[in-house]
């Protein structure tokens, strides 16, 4: 069984501090949904509220249409995977996995059968008798998943569960988590500050900053059509050119920046005179001139060769640093010190209202 999760105007305060501010969203049944944001943005607070360890100061949490107010974490149809996994060190792998069944009074033979089944699912068959300390990091990770799945939750909550693993394993576990989600078919709510994780695994992502949900969309939309300066600067690399809107017409706008007038799409419908930031992704820039208000004269400062591509660091007018990424095919890599004209397709620039940017 699987359930949807609804947050309605959920506000969570700790004293004077507002950790989550009027969050409203609906996570669909069977969806892989991620909350993405820098540490301290309130994403873990939301997760703890859904799991029942926190009650919202205001607002309602509904799971499967049922209001969860007053229902403790041990009574909710959710299971949480902790950041540090929180496996029970004194119990065997099988006892860890079946702990939730044991407290439900399910007899031992049934539990052992279930443990074998789950060990099969997480590709650790026959390892139930081992102690948790005898497992590797990735294996512990999988045991934590099995322990949560054993109680047949309708919603699985994951609090940055991959952050303790090394890079290779982390990438491998992304695929594995996605595969497990497909197999069990329940709703996954995933918390992360790693945009790579969010983009590769999620059906939809909510980008959070300072307790506020900035944007909810699928990964591609978030990347290509960010709707705030924070999202544009937090997800992926972006060149930001602050200025004032000088012209706006059906869907596009031009911004007068410190390096001249530049244009891009205008998703938020800004008007002439509004303070705005024009964002252009490094991979949207290419050498050569283009449309007049999408061309920048620069000087090459340095080139960083990364194998499949190169990062080129440029200096625009009034010393504005600009980053450009070029692939290996079809583009010549400029030399350091060489002057270079770069341009972009105007529909790949995005004009967004001035606002808080993500810290580097």
């Amino acid at each position: 069984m699987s359930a949807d999760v609804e947050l309605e105007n959920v506000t969570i305060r700790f004293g004077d501090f507002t950790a989550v501010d009027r969050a409203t969203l609906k996570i669909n049944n069977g969806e892989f949904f991620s909350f993405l944001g820098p540490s301290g943005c309130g994403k873990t607070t939301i997760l703890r509220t859904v799991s029942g360890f926190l009650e919202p100061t205001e607002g309602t949490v509904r799971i499967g249409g049922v209001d969860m107010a007053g229902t403790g974490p041990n009574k909710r149809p959710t299971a949480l995977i902790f950041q540090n996994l929180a496996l029970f060190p004194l119990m065997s792998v099988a006892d860890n996995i079946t702990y939730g069944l044991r407290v439900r009074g399910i007899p031992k033979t049934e539990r052992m059968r279930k443990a074998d089944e789950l060990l099969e699912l997480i590709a650790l068959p026959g390892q139930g008798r081992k102690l948790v300390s005898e497992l590797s990091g990735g294996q512990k990770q999988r045991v934590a998943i099995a322990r949560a799945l054993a109680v047949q939750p309708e919603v699985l909550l994951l609090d940055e569960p991959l952050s303790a693993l090394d890079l290779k394993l982390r990438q491998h576990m992304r695929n594995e988590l996605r595969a497990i989600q497909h197999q069990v078919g329940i709703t996954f709510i995933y918390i992360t500050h790693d945009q790579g994780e969010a983009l590769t695994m999620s059906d939809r992502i909510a980008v959070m900053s300072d307790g506020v949900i900035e944007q909810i969309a699928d990964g591609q939309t978030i990347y290509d059509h960010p709707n705030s300066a924070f999202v544009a600067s937090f997800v992926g690399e972006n060149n930001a050119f602050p200025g004032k809107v000088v012209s706006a017409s059906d869907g596009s706008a031009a911004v007068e920046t410190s390096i001249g007038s530049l244009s891009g799409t205008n998703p938020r419908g800004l008007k002439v005179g509004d303070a705005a930031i024009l964002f252009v992704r490094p991979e949207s820039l290419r050498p050569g001139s283009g449309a007049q208000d999408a061309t920048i004269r620069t000087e090459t400062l340095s080139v960083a060769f990364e194998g499949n591509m190169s990062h080129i660091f440029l200096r625009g007018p009034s010393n504005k640093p600009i980053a450009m990424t070029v692939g290996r095919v079809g583009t010549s890599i400029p030399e350091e010190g060489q002057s270079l004209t770069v341009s972009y397709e105007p529909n790949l620039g995005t004009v967004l209202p001035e606002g808080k940017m993500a810290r580097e």
Partner: protein
Amino acid sequence: MSSRLLVFALPLVVIAIFWLMSILESRVRRDPTHKSYFERNGLLLGGIFIGLVAFWTLFLVTLPYLYMVVESFHPTLTPNKRGGPDDVLTIAQYQSFFINPVDDALNTTHIGALIFTIIASAAVTLLNFAICYPLAFYMAQTGTAQKVRLLMLALIVPYWVNEILRAFSLRLLLASRGLINQTLMWLGITDAPIDFLGNNTGLYVGLSYAYLLVMIFPLYNAVQSLDRNQIEAARDLGAPWWRIHKDVVIPYAKPGIASGCTMVFMLSAGSLAAPQFLGGPRTLWFTSIVYDFFFQSFNWARGAAYAFILLTVCIFIVMAMLRVFKISLGETIK
């Protein structure tokens, strides 16, 4: 006299054996890079270290106990007969615990006192654990830092009051016309005063309170290092609060629990003041018997024998308990 000399020579013999072994080892397995103890520390400093350690282990720890062991195997003699022909090795003092030498009957008084002391100490230990576990859990896991500091202060400061004063204050509180009885009678809960001292309530209260800290701190230490996520994980998986304690907290804190319980049990069984001042008139604590042999009848030999009987029985019980709960001795002293 010869047996006493022998015992005092024993530590020296042991030291000599170890010394010889180390010399032998350095001969057999010669390591040119190895510097001897005196080469590393210098003659003066090295000598001071050895002197201090030797003083501590020999004069303060080993010899007094060895002397008591030897004494317990000697007959009760007046000072002028010590070292004379009557001063022979004997197990009479230990026998006297079982068979009373006065009437050759089973020594029910002393055996009964030992059993009572053991059972009462075990009860005090359990009572103390029941009081301290929730407190320690609160301090280690749920309380805010400020409240925990206040609580610690409230627990520690009363211990600045000396033991005798504490015992007598409790006595005043629990006496027939003490505060508690007067309150109970005023509230109409009881007509006649309850004999808290006679029915040993005072004894249990006094002993539990006396060793509260000895229980709380090992528990606190053990529970404090438990990752709170473990508790939340159990709760999230559906465990009610008592199961979380049974399955997660107590197994984790087991070494601390064993350490606290061992100390409270040992100290209770060996305590003197609280049982004497707070016990009922018919209550005979085993250490009071030992005390009387030493200071009333000046029978050091029998007192020493009784003290060792108590020690042996206590150690045996503690070891058995550690065995039952599958804890190694090393874990409890961590």
